[in-house]
Protein backbone atom coordinates (compact mmCIF):
# COMPACT_ATOMS: atom_id res chain seq x y z
CA UNK A 1 0.00 0.00 0.00
CA UNK A 2 0.94 3.61 -0.10
CA UNK A 3 3.26 3.50 2.86
CA UNK A 4 4.98 6.78 2.07
CA UNK A 5 1.66 8.56 1.97
CA UNK A 6 0.67 7.11 5.34
CA UNK A 7 3.98 8.22 6.88
CA UNK A 8 3.55 11.71 5.47
CA UNK A 9 0.20 11.91 7.22
CA UNK A 10 1.79 10.94 10.51
CA UNK A 11 4.59 13.41 10.13
CA UNK A 12 2.62 16.28 8.71
CA UNK A 13 -0.69 15.79 10.58
CA UNK A 14 -2.93 18.82 10.81
CA UNK A 15 -2.29 21.51 13.38
CA UNK A 16 -4.82 21.57 16.20
CA UNK A 17 -5.33 24.29 18.78
CA UNK A 18 -6.06 23.46 22.39
CA UNK A 19 -7.40 26.40 24.37
CA UNK A 20 -6.86 25.56 28.02
CA UNK A 21 -8.15 27.19 31.19
CA UNK A 22 -5.17 28.24 33.31
CA UNK A 23 -5.40 29.25 36.94
CA UNK A 24 -3.69 28.44 40.20
CA UNK A 25 -5.97 29.39 43.08
CA UNK A 26 -3.08 28.93 45.53
CA UNK A 27 -0.92 31.51 43.80
CA UNK A 28 -1.95 35.09 44.47
CA UNK A 29 -0.20 36.25 41.30
CA UNK A 30 -2.23 33.86 39.13
CA UNK A 31 -5.19 35.18 37.21
CA UNK A 32 -7.73 32.88 35.52
CA UNK A 33 -7.23 32.97 31.75
CA UNK A 34 -7.32 30.84 28.62
CA UNK A 35 -4.11 29.84 26.90
CA UNK A 36 -3.76 28.54 23.34
CA UNK A 37 -1.45 25.65 22.49
CA UNK A 38 -0.84 24.63 18.89
CA UNK A 39 0.33 21.07 18.30
CA UNK A 40 0.60 18.66 15.38
CA UNK A 41 -2.04 15.96 15.47
CA UNK A 42 -0.93 12.33 15.21
CA UNK A 43 -3.10 9.36 14.19
CA UNK A 44 -5.26 8.04 17.02
CA UNK A 45 -4.35 10.99 19.23
CA UNK A 46 -6.45 11.27 22.35
CA UNK A 47 -6.78 14.43 24.40
CA UNK A 48 -4.67 12.74 27.03
CA UNK A 49 -1.84 12.26 24.49
CA UNK A 50 -2.26 15.85 23.31
CA UNK A 51 -1.97 17.10 26.89
CA UNK A 52 1.13 14.99 27.57
CA UNK A 53 2.54 16.40 24.34
CA UNK A 54 2.01 19.95 25.60
CA UNK A 55 3.34 19.13 29.06
CA UNK A 56 6.55 17.53 27.84
CA UNK A 57 7.31 19.77 24.87
CA UNK A 58 5.69 23.16 25.39
CA UNK A 59 4.65 23.92 28.95
CA UNK A 60 5.92 22.07 32.02
CA UNK A 61 3.69 24.16 34.24
CA UNK A 62 0.40 22.79 32.87
CA UNK A 63 -1.55 20.71 35.40
CA UNK A 64 -4.04 17.96 34.63
CA UNK A 65 -4.95 14.64 36.21
CA UNK A 66 -4.50 11.17 34.80
CA UNK A 67 -3.65 7.66 35.98
CA UNK A 68 -4.81 4.75 33.84
CA UNK A 69 -5.09 6.27 30.32
CA UNK A 70 -7.76 3.65 29.54
CA UNK A 71 -11.08 5.01 30.80
CA UNK A 72 -10.98 3.05 34.04
CA UNK A 73 -9.66 5.35 36.75
CA UNK A 74 -11.85 8.37 36.03
CA UNK A 75 -9.08 10.87 36.81
CA UNK A 76 -8.89 12.72 33.50
CA UNK A 77 -12.47 14.01 33.40
CA UNK A 78 -12.62 17.56 32.05
CA UNK A 79 -14.94 19.81 30.08
CA UNK A 80 -14.22 19.39 26.37
CA UNK A 81 -15.86 22.02 24.16
CA UNK A 82 -18.56 22.38 26.80
CA UNK A 83 -19.15 18.65 27.39
CA UNK A 84 -17.78 16.84 30.44
CA UNK A 85 -15.74 13.88 29.12
CA UNK A 86 -12.72 11.68 29.81
CA UNK A 87 -9.59 13.05 28.10
CA UNK A 88 -8.23 9.53 27.56
CA UNK A 89 -11.39 8.39 25.75
CA UNK A 90 -11.70 11.44 23.50
CA UNK A 91 -10.01 11.45 20.09
CA UNK A 92 -8.79 14.80 18.78
CA UNK A 93 -9.86 13.73 15.27
CA UNK A 94 -13.46 14.10 16.40
CA UNK A 95 -13.10 17.89 16.28
CA UNK A 96 -13.16 18.66 12.59
CA UNK A 97 -12.24 22.32 12.96
CA UNK A 98 -9.21 21.36 15.08
CA UNK A 99 -10.24 23.69 17.90
CA UNK A 100 -10.62 22.21 21.36
CA UNK A 101 -11.34 24.13 24.56
CA UNK A 102 -10.56 22.40 27.84
CA UNK A 103 -11.88 23.44 31.24
CA UNK A 104 -11.69 21.78 34.64
CA UNK A 105 -14.88 20.02 35.81
CA UNK A 106 -17.15 22.47 37.60
CA UNK A 107 -18.61 21.76 41.08
CA UNK A 108 -15.42 20.20 42.45
CA UNK A 109 -12.54 21.73 44.42
CA UNK A 110 -10.26 23.31 41.84
CA UNK A 111 -6.56 22.49 42.31
CA UNK A 112 -4.86 24.05 39.30
CA UNK A 113 -5.58 24.44 35.56
CA UNK A 114 -7.45 21.23 34.61
CA UNK A 115 -6.72 19.48 37.87
CA UNK A 116 -9.53 19.06 40.39
CA UNK A 117 -10.14 17.13 43.59
CA UNK A 118 -12.96 14.63 43.10
CA UNK A 119 -11.67 12.26 45.80
CA UNK A 120 -12.62 14.30 48.84
CA UNK A 121 -16.20 14.72 47.63
CA UNK A 122 -16.52 11.09 46.51
CA UNK A 123 -15.30 9.86 49.91
CA UNK A 124 -17.80 12.08 51.69
CA UNK A 125 -20.54 10.79 49.36
CA UNK A 126 -19.60 7.17 50.09
CA UNK A 127 -19.84 7.85 53.81
CA UNK A 128 -23.11 9.74 53.40
CA UNK A 129 -24.89 6.96 51.51
CA UNK A 130 -23.09 4.29 53.56
CA UNK A 131 -21.66 2.75 50.46
CA UNK A 132 -21.00 -0.72 51.78
CA UNK A 133 -22.96 -3.96 52.32
CA UNK A 134 -25.01 -3.83 55.51
CA UNK A 135 -25.49 -7.31 56.83
CA UNK A 136 -25.80 -8.84 60.28
CA UNK A 137 -24.84 -12.22 58.90
CA UNK A 138 -21.43 -13.48 59.94
CA UNK A 139 -19.56 -14.23 56.73
CA UNK A 140 -17.36 -17.29 56.62
CA UNK A 141 -14.85 -16.50 53.90
CA UNK A 142 -13.74 -20.13 53.69
CA UNK A 143 -17.14 -21.02 52.26
CA UNK A 144 -18.76 -20.14 48.95
CA UNK A 145 -20.73 -16.92 48.98
CA UNK A 146 -24.52 -17.21 49.06
CA UNK A 147 -25.58 -17.39 45.40
CA UNK A 148 -27.85 -14.78 43.84
CA UNK A 149 -29.77 -14.77 40.59
CA UNK A 150 -27.43 -14.07 37.63
CA UNK A 151 -29.75 -11.30 36.34
CA UNK A 152 -29.64 -9.58 39.72
CA UNK A 153 -25.87 -9.98 39.90
CA UNK A 154 -25.54 -8.48 36.42
CA UNK A 155 -27.61 -5.50 37.47
CA UNK A 156 -25.43 -4.93 40.54
CA UNK A 157 -22.15 -5.41 38.68
CA UNK A 158 -23.33 -3.05 35.96
CA UNK A 159 -23.64 -0.30 38.56
CA UNK A 160 -20.30 -1.29 40.08
CA UNK A 161 -18.70 -0.12 36.83
CA UNK A 162 -18.98 3.48 38.09
CA UNK A 163 -15.50 5.01 38.14
CA UNK A 164 -16.40 8.09 40.22
CA UNK A 165 -15.04 10.40 37.53
CA UNK A 166 -17.44 13.15 38.57
CA UNK A 167 -18.82 13.70 35.06
CA UNK A 168 -22.41 13.08 36.17
CA UNK A 169 -22.11 15.90 38.70
CA UNK A 170 -20.37 18.26 36.30
CA UNK A 171 -23.14 17.57 33.73
CA UNK A 172 -25.91 18.26 36.22
CA UNK A 173 -27.25 21.82 36.26
CA UNK A 174 -29.12 21.01 39.46
CA UNK A 175 -25.84 20.20 41.16
CA UNK A 176 -24.26 23.36 39.69
CA UNK A 177 -27.14 25.39 41.15
CA UNK A 178 -27.34 23.54 44.46
CA UNK A 179 -24.03 22.41 45.88
CA UNK A 180 -25.55 20.04 48.44
CA UNK A 181 -27.26 17.90 45.79
CA UNK A 182 -26.03 14.32 45.92
CA UNK A 183 -26.11 13.77 42.15
CA UNK A 184 -26.37 10.62 40.06
CA UNK A 185 -23.26 8.95 41.48
CA UNK A 186 -24.67 9.03 45.02
CA UNK A 187 -28.25 8.15 44.09
CA UNK A 188 -27.25 5.27 41.85
CA UNK A 189 -24.87 4.02 44.52
CA UNK A 190 -27.85 3.53 46.82
CA UNK A 191 -29.64 1.73 43.96
CA UNK A 192 -26.65 -0.62 43.69
CA UNK A 193 -27.07 -1.66 47.34
CA UNK A 194 -30.88 -1.63 47.21
CA UNK A 195 -30.73 -4.19 44.36
CA UNK A 196 -28.03 -6.34 45.98
CA UNK A 197 -29.69 -9.11 48.06
CA UNK A 198 -26.56 -9.28 50.27
CA UNK A 199 -27.51 -5.88 51.67
CA UNK A 200 -30.16 -6.14 54.38
CA UNK A 201 -31.14 -2.47 54.42
CA UNK A 202 -34.83 -1.70 53.92
CA UNK A 203 -36.37 1.11 51.87
CA UNK A 204 -36.88 2.96 55.18
CA UNK A 205 -33.13 2.80 55.77
CA UNK A 206 -32.40 4.17 52.31
CA UNK A 207 -34.96 6.91 52.85
CA UNK A 208 -32.89 8.13 55.78
CA UNK A 209 -29.93 8.49 53.40
CA UNK A 210 -31.50 10.06 50.30
CA UNK A 211 -35.11 10.98 51.17
CA UNK A 212 -34.87 14.76 50.90
CA UNK A 213 -34.32 17.62 48.48
CA UNK A 214 -30.54 17.15 48.58
CA UNK A 215 -31.12 13.53 47.61
CA UNK A 216 -33.61 11.79 45.35
CA UNK A 217 -36.29 14.51 45.49
CA UNK A 218 -33.81 17.17 44.43
CA UNK A 219 -33.24 15.47 41.07
CA UNK A 220 -35.07 17.37 38.31
CA UNK A 221 -34.44 14.73 35.60
CA UNK A 222 -32.36 17.04 33.42
CA UNK A 223 -30.54 13.87 32.30
CA UNK A 224 -27.15 15.54 31.83
CA UNK A 225 -25.72 12.65 33.88
CA UNK A 226 -27.30 10.02 31.63
CA UNK A 227 -26.10 11.72 28.44
CA UNK A 228 -22.49 12.29 29.52
CA UNK A 229 -21.62 9.22 31.63
CA UNK A 230 -18.46 7.82 29.96
CA UNK A 231 -19.35 4.32 31.18
CA UNK A 232 -22.91 4.47 29.77
CA UNK A 233 -24.42 3.50 33.10
CA UNK A 234 -28.24 3.32 33.22
CA UNK A 235 -28.48 6.39 35.44
CA UNK A 236 -31.95 7.59 34.43
CA UNK A 237 -33.64 4.23 34.95
CA UNK A 238 -31.90 3.61 38.27
CA UNK A 239 -32.68 7.08 39.66
CA UNK A 240 -36.32 6.49 38.62
CA UNK A 241 -36.16 3.10 40.38
CA UNK A 242 -35.01 4.72 43.65
CA UNK A 243 -37.56 7.53 43.32
CA UNK A 244 -40.41 5.02 42.97
CA UNK A 245 -39.12 3.14 46.01
CA UNK A 246 -38.61 6.22 48.15
CA UNK A 247 -41.99 7.75 47.38
CA UNK A 248 -43.68 4.57 48.60
CA UNK A 249 -42.00 4.67 52.02
CA UNK A 250 -44.69 5.18 54.67
Amino acid at each position, binding site marked *: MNRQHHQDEIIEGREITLTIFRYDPNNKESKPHYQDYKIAETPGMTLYIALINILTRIDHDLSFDFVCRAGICGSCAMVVN*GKPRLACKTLTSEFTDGKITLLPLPTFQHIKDLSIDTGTWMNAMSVKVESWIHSKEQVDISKLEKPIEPEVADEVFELDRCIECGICLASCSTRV*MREDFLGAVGLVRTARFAIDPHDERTDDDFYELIG*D*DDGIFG*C*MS*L*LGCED*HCPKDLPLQTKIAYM*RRKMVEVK
Partner: protein
Amino acid sequence: MQQEQIIELLTQKDAKKKKSRIPARLDYLQSATGLLLAIFMIFHMLFVSTILISKDFMLAVTKAFELSFIFEGGSSVPVFISIAIVFVIFIAHALLAMRKFPISYREYKRLKIHANLMNHADTKLWMIQAGTGFALFFLGSIHLYTMLTNPGNIGPYASSDRVYSDLMWPLYILLLIAVEFHGAIGLYRLSMKWGWFDKGDGKETRAKLKKAKIVLSGVMLVLGFATLFAYMQIGQEHKASYGERYYNETYPMEQK
Protein backbone atom coordinates in the same frame (compact mmCIF):
# COMPACT_ATOMS: atom_id res chain seq x y z
CA MET B 1 -46.34 19.76 67.78
CA GLN B 2 -44.19 22.87 67.98
CA GLN B 3 -41.46 21.00 69.84
CA GLU B 4 -41.47 18.33 67.14
CA GLN B 5 -41.03 20.96 64.46
CA ILE B 6 -38.18 22.56 66.36
CA ILE B 7 -36.48 19.18 66.74
CA GLU B 8 -36.69 18.79 62.96
CA LEU B 9 -35.32 22.29 62.48
CA LEU B 10 -32.32 21.49 64.66
CA THR B 11 -31.58 17.92 63.60
CA GLN B 12 -33.22 17.56 60.14
CA LYS B 13 -35.00 14.55 61.65
CA ASP B 14 -37.95 14.04 63.98
CA ALA B 15 -37.87 12.90 67.61
CA LYS B 16 -37.67 9.27 66.44
CA LYS B 17 -34.64 10.26 64.37
CA LYS B 18 -36.63 9.72 61.17
CA LYS B 19 -36.51 11.95 58.12
CA SER B 20 -39.71 13.79 57.20
CA ARG B 21 -41.86 12.06 54.58
CA ILE B 22 -43.11 15.42 53.32
CA PRO B 23 -40.47 15.84 50.57
CA ALA B 24 -41.64 12.50 49.12
CA ARG B 25 -45.27 13.62 49.19
CA LEU B 26 -44.41 16.97 47.61
CA ASP B 27 -42.43 15.32 44.82
CA TYR B 28 -45.29 12.92 44.13
CA LEU B 29 -47.94 15.64 44.24
CA GLN B 30 -45.95 17.89 41.92
CA SER B 31 -45.94 15.11 39.33
CA ALA B 32 -49.56 14.09 39.98
CA THR B 33 -50.95 17.64 39.65
CA GLY B 34 -48.85 18.15 36.52
CA LEU B 35 -50.14 14.93 35.00
CA LEU B 36 -53.76 15.86 35.78
CA LEU B 37 -53.31 19.30 34.22
CA ALA B 38 -51.63 17.84 31.14
CA ILE B 39 -54.47 15.36 30.62
CA PHE B 40 -56.99 18.13 31.22
CA MET B 41 -55.26 20.34 28.65
CA ILE B 42 -55.39 17.62 25.98
CA PHE B 43 -59.15 17.18 26.47
CA HIS B 44 -59.66 20.93 26.78
CA MET B 45 -58.04 21.32 23.35
CA LEU B 46 -60.22 18.58 21.86
CA PHE B 47 -63.36 20.24 23.22
CA VAL B 48 -62.60 23.84 22.19
CA SER B 49 -61.48 22.68 18.76
CA THR B 50 -64.97 21.29 18.07
CA ILE B 51 -65.62 24.77 16.62
CA LEU B 52 -63.58 23.59 13.63
CA ILE B 53 -66.27 21.02 12.93
CA SER B 54 -69.30 23.29 13.34
CA LYS B 55 -70.92 25.86 15.61
CA ASP B 56 -73.71 23.40 16.35
CA PHE B 57 -71.30 20.70 17.45
CA MET B 58 -69.39 23.12 19.69
CA LEU B 59 -72.69 24.23 21.23
CA ALA B 60 -73.72 20.60 21.82
CA VAL B 61 -70.41 19.91 23.63
CA THR B 62 -70.82 23.06 25.72
CA LYS B 63 -74.35 22.10 26.65
CA ALA B 64 -73.20 18.61 27.61
CA PHE B 65 -70.77 20.19 30.10
CA GLU B 66 -73.59 22.34 31.38
CA LEU B 67 -75.39 19.05 32.03
CA SER B 68 -78.27 20.03 29.76
CA PHE B 69 -79.44 16.40 29.91
CA ILE B 70 -80.27 17.03 33.58
CA PHE B 71 -80.96 20.75 33.74
CA GLU B 72 -83.26 22.25 31.13
CA GLY B 73 -81.11 24.36 28.77
CA GLY B 74 -77.97 23.65 30.84
CA SER B 75 -76.57 25.19 33.99
CA SER B 76 -73.35 27.15 34.50
CA VAL B 77 -72.88 25.69 38.01
CA PRO B 78 -71.15 22.43 36.94
CA VAL B 79 -68.88 24.47 34.67
CA PHE B 80 -68.03 26.81 37.55
CA ILE B 81 -67.24 23.85 39.83
CA SER B 82 -65.03 22.22 37.18
CA ILE B 83 -63.09 25.46 36.62
CA ALA B 84 -62.71 25.96 40.37
CA ILE B 85 -61.26 22.44 40.73
CA VAL B 86 -58.83 23.05 37.85
CA PHE B 87 -57.84 26.39 39.40
CA VAL B 88 -57.03 24.71 42.72
CA ILE B 89 -54.92 22.01 40.99
CA PHE B 90 -53.25 24.74 38.93
CA ILE B 91 -52.28 26.74 42.03
CA ALA B 92 -51.11 23.60 43.85
CA HIS B 93 -48.95 22.62 40.88
CA ALA B 94 -47.46 26.13 40.65
CA LEU B 95 -46.65 26.09 44.35
CA LEU B 96 -45.05 22.63 44.21
CA ALA B 97 -43.12 23.21 40.99
CA MET B 98 -41.79 26.53 42.26
CA ARG B 99 -39.53 24.57 44.62
CA LYS B 100 -37.39 23.65 41.63
CA PHE B 101 -36.94 27.16 40.22
CA PRO B 102 -33.59 28.90 40.55
CA ILE B 103 -34.56 31.07 43.51
CA SER B 104 -31.66 33.49 43.67
CA TYR B 105 -29.62 35.41 41.13
CA ARG B 106 -26.65 33.20 42.04
CA GLU B 107 -28.57 30.01 41.23
CA TYR B 108 -30.02 31.51 38.06
CA LYS B 109 -26.62 32.70 36.83
CA ARG B 110 -24.92 29.37 37.54
CA LEU B 111 -27.74 27.44 35.84
CA LYS B 112 -27.72 29.65 32.76
CA ILE B 113 -23.94 29.69 32.25
CA HIS B 114 -23.70 25.94 32.82
CA ALA B 115 -26.62 25.10 30.51
CA ASN B 116 -25.21 27.33 27.76
CA LEU B 117 -21.73 25.88 28.19
CA MET B 118 -22.95 22.28 27.92
CA ASN B 119 -25.57 22.99 25.27
CA HIS B 120 -27.41 19.90 26.50
CA ALA B 121 -30.85 19.39 24.96
CA ASP B 122 -32.75 18.11 28.00
CA THR B 123 -31.31 20.77 30.31
CA LYS B 124 -32.43 23.41 27.81
CA LEU B 125 -35.86 21.77 27.66
CA TRP B 126 -36.08 22.15 31.42
CA MET B 127 -35.25 25.83 31.14
CA ILE B 128 -38.05 26.23 28.59
CA GLN B 129 -40.34 24.36 30.98
CA ALA B 130 -39.39 26.60 33.91
CA GLY B 131 -39.75 29.75 31.77
CA THR B 132 -43.15 28.78 30.36
CA GLY B 133 -44.19 27.66 33.85
CA PHE B 134 -43.40 31.11 35.19
CA ALA B 135 -45.36 32.73 32.33
CA LEU B 136 -48.29 30.42 33.12
CA PHE B 137 -48.55 31.79 36.67
CA PHE B 138 -49.96 34.91 35.05
CA LEU B 139 -51.40 33.78 31.72
CA GLY B 140 -53.17 30.79 33.24
CA SER B 141 -54.49 32.77 36.20
CA ILE B 142 -56.01 35.47 33.99
CA HIS B 143 -57.74 32.88 31.82
CA LEU B 144 -58.95 30.79 34.74
CA TYR B 145 -60.30 33.82 36.61
CA THR B 146 -62.06 35.07 33.47
CA MET B 147 -63.72 31.69 33.02
CA LEU B 148 -64.52 31.34 36.70
CA THR B 149 -66.44 34.60 36.60
CA ASN B 150 -68.07 33.79 33.24
CA PRO B 151 -68.93 30.08 33.43
CA GLY B 152 -72.13 30.63 31.44
CA ASN B 153 -70.43 32.59 28.67
CA ILE B 154 -69.14 29.67 26.70
CA GLY B 155 -70.51 28.98 23.24
CA PRO B 156 -69.85 29.60 19.55
CA TYR B 157 -70.62 33.33 19.76
CA ALA B 158 -69.91 33.96 23.46
CA SER B 159 -66.41 32.46 23.18
CA SER B 160 -65.72 34.17 19.84
CA ASP B 161 -66.74 37.55 21.26
CA ARG B 162 -64.38 36.99 24.17
CA VAL B 163 -61.52 36.07 21.87
CA TYR B 164 -62.04 38.87 19.36
CA SER B 165 -64.09 41.75 20.79
CA ASP B 166 -62.88 41.39 24.41
CA LEU B 167 -59.31 41.28 23.10
CA MET B 168 -58.38 38.01 24.75
CA TRP B 169 -56.62 36.70 21.61
CA PRO B 170 -53.15 38.16 22.38
CA LEU B 171 -53.27 36.43 25.77
CA TYR B 172 -54.54 33.22 24.19
CA ILE B 173 -51.67 33.16 21.67
CA LEU B 174 -49.13 33.39 24.50
CA LEU B 175 -51.10 30.97 26.67
CA LEU B 176 -51.33 28.43 23.87
CA ILE B 177 -47.59 28.49 23.16
CA ALA B 178 -46.69 28.35 26.87
CA VAL B 179 -49.12 25.51 27.65
CA GLU B 180 -48.18 23.30 24.71
CA PHE B 181 -44.46 23.55 25.34
CA HIS B 182 -44.80 23.25 29.11
CA GLY B 183 -47.23 20.34 28.95
CA ALA B 184 -45.45 18.26 26.32
CA ILE B 185 -42.03 18.72 27.92
CA GLY B 186 -43.62 18.01 31.29
CA LEU B 187 -45.13 14.71 30.16
CA TYR B 188 -41.80 13.64 28.66
CA ARG B 189 -39.99 14.56 31.88
CA LEU B 190 -42.58 12.75 34.01
CA SER B 191 -42.00 9.54 32.09
CA MET B 192 -38.23 9.93 32.57
CA LYS B 193 -38.54 10.89 36.21
CA TRP B 194 -40.67 7.94 37.24
CA GLY B 195 -39.42 5.51 34.60
CA TRP B 196 -42.91 4.73 33.30
CA PHE B 197 -41.68 2.97 30.18
CA ASP B 198 -38.32 1.71 31.38
CA LYS B 199 -38.83 -1.92 30.44
CA GLY B 200 -36.24 -3.00 27.89
CA ASP B 201 -33.81 -0.55 26.38
CA GLY B 202 -34.18 2.73 28.27
CA LYS B 203 -32.28 4.74 25.68
CA GLU B 204 -34.45 3.54 22.81
CA THR B 205 -37.63 4.27 24.76
CA ARG B 206 -36.36 7.73 25.57
CA ALA B 207 -35.70 8.51 21.91
CA LYS B 208 -39.24 7.41 21.06
CA LEU B 209 -40.76 9.45 23.88
CA LYS B 210 -38.82 12.48 22.76
CA LYS B 211 -40.28 12.11 19.28
CA ALA B 212 -43.75 11.68 20.79
CA LYS B 213 -43.20 14.90 22.75
CA ILE B 214 -42.39 16.84 19.58
CA VAL B 215 -45.39 15.35 17.75
CA LEU B 216 -47.70 16.13 20.69
CA SER B 217 -46.66 19.77 21.02
CA GLY B 218 -46.71 20.16 17.21
CA VAL B 219 -50.21 18.71 16.81
CA MET B 220 -51.54 20.70 19.76
CA LEU B 221 -50.03 23.95 18.48
CA VAL B 222 -51.44 23.47 14.96
CA LEU B 223 -54.85 22.49 16.34
CA GLY B 224 -54.71 25.33 18.87
CA PHE B 225 -53.86 28.01 16.33
CA ALA B 226 -56.47 26.71 13.88
CA THR B 227 -59.06 26.82 16.66
CA LEU B 228 -58.03 30.29 17.81
CA PHE B 229 -58.18 31.52 14.23
CA ALA B 230 -61.69 30.03 13.85
CA TYR B 231 -62.93 31.85 16.97
CA MET B 232 -61.31 35.08 15.78
CA GLN B 233 -62.99 34.81 12.42
CA ILE B 234 -66.41 34.16 13.98
CA GLY B 235 -65.74 36.96 16.50
CA GLN B 236 -64.94 39.40 13.73
CA GLU B 237 -68.06 38.49 11.75
CA HIS B 238 -70.14 38.67 14.92
CA LYS B 239 -68.67 41.98 16.12
CA ALA B 240 -71.76 44.01 15.26
CA SER B 241 -73.98 41.68 17.29
CA TYR B 242 -71.61 41.45 20.29
CA GLY B 243 -73.32 39.77 23.22
CA GLU B 244 -75.89 37.91 21.13
CA ARG B 245 -75.82 34.13 21.63
CA TYR B 246 -75.81 31.34 19.11
CA TYR B 247 -78.84 29.11 19.08
CA ASN B 248 -80.28 26.31 16.98
CA GLU B 249 -83.25 23.95 16.96
CA THR B 250 -81.89 21.71 19.73
CA TYR B 251 -80.92 24.66 21.92
CA PRO B 252 -83.30 27.46 20.96
CA MET B 253 -81.76 29.99 23.37
CA GLU B 254 -78.14 29.96 24.41
CA GLN B 255 -77.86 30.00 28.18
CA LYS B 256 -76.50 33.20 29.70
